[in-house]
């Protein structure tokens, strides 16, 4: 039985360095999966392969909703179904907050300007940024920018949301507001894959936690299993390093 997102034998090389060593992973529709692990473990590379921002080796296979993630026409379809939130927000600095949210629906889906504007205002209200709709991203705090980035991704009404360390670039006092939005989102049934260092978020919100190291999945299971009673030595030493400081 293959998952809504199915990953088979995913291998990725940077030159001679192997970043991903044959990952197999199935994620169900509506599931919230948190991926944790030390830096350089391949966790960001893994989720960047899901919408093919990273190329991966021939022979590896990823499918989203049974559509193969490979170069060509099907890729645009996959990317329209898969939203992504980046560590550094990557908002479009020359557009207002509202225009940031409106751009993709208009250009990819052909939504009318008026309709896209109404949708953008609704999404900005949902992430609590209504007041700032006419400002430019540089006028917003990091936490606000990341919430706009989430609204921008949601505007394409994706089935899957990928989060690549969404709170790592934020000042500590702004982490909470972004995690709150993500927690709301998780309760709406969107499939989420979240690369994060926020163990509290993983424990509360994830259906499954995956620990990666050295380009491999070392351990996978419910938050209690992986975070409270890890079986693998590498998971144990990572968690004790993260939690004891």
């Amino acid at each position, binding site marked *: 039985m293959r998952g809504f997102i199915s990953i088979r034998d995913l291998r990725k090389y940077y030159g001679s360095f192997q970043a991903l060593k044959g990952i197999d992973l199935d994620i169900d529709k509506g599931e919230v999966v948190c991926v944790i692990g030390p830096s350089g473990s391949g966790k960001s590379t893994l989720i960047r392969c899901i*919408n093919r921002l990273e190329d991966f080796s021939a022979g590896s296979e990823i499918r989203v909703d049974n559509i193969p993630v490979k170069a060509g026409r099907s890729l645009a379809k996959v990317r329209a179904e*898969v939203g992504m939130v980046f560590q550094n927000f990557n908002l479009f600095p*020359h557009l207002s907050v509202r225009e940031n949210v409106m751009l*993709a629906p208009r*250009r*990819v889906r052909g939504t009318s300007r008026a309709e896209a504007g109404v949708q953008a205002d609704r999404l900005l209200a949902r992430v609590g940024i209504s007041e700032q709709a006419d400002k430019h991203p540089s006028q917003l705090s990091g936490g606000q920018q990341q919430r706009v980035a989430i609204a921008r991704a949601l505007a*394409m009404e994706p089935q899957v949301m990928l989060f690549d360390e969404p709170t790592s670039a934020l000042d500590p006092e702004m982490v909470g507001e972004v995690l709150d939005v993500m927690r709301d989102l998780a309760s709406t049934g969107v499939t989420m894959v979240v690369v994060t260092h926020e163990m509290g978020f993983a424990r509360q919100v994830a259906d499954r936690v995956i620990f990666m190291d050295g380009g491999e999945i070392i351990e996978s299971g419910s938050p209690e299993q992986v975070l409270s009673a890890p079986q693998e030595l590498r998971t144990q030493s990572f968690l004790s390093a993260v939690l004891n400081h």
Partner: protein
Amino acid sequence: MDIVDTFFNTEVLLRTWPMLIKGLWITLQLGVLSIIAGLALGLLLALMRLYAVTPVQWLTRVYIDIFRSIPLLVLLIVVYYALPFLGLRLSPFASAMTALTMVSGAYAAEIFRAGIQAVPQGQFEASAALGMNYRRTMADVILPQAVKIVIPPLTNNSINVIKDTALASVVAMPDLLKQATQAQALAANPSPLIGAAIIYVAILRPLVAYVSRLERRFGGGSGR
């Protein structure tokens, strides 16, 4: 004859002024058309240089390097005097515009390329992740940001194109410089040349000041 009568002879200047204005008109036509065509060519070359299939990228690079190295005067003479042997006879205006466009296009290509590459990689990734195709990404996200970066160096490039139009006088184009040298011959007095110099400065000095202002505002950016 003193220096004022020789170089700043108002009587000669007034008499030859209509010739200079006629020349100025042609200089401006040639300059503006070459700038516009050069910008279009430059953008096309930059996109080919960055995103075309490898052999085309390589050819584009060869083109850009050659036309940045060749002296404009040499190219102009080749286009005007040598192409007719290949059966292509261009008017002086068309020859000058072709040479100016080919060279300014090569410079503009490098400027556009630098501008596009200065846009952070994350902007391309965010666009791709939203499902936007290459054309939309360029038109809606990358180029609007690159334009800000390239305006000062492109303005510099345009100033150079207008100055280089003076070279067209060697292929018998009645541009500002050509008219000035003819007026000088007719009047047996070099004041029209000084008049032409003043006109060039009057036209280009505001552009030069504009670039300085932009560069101060954006910080950095240099031309050729």
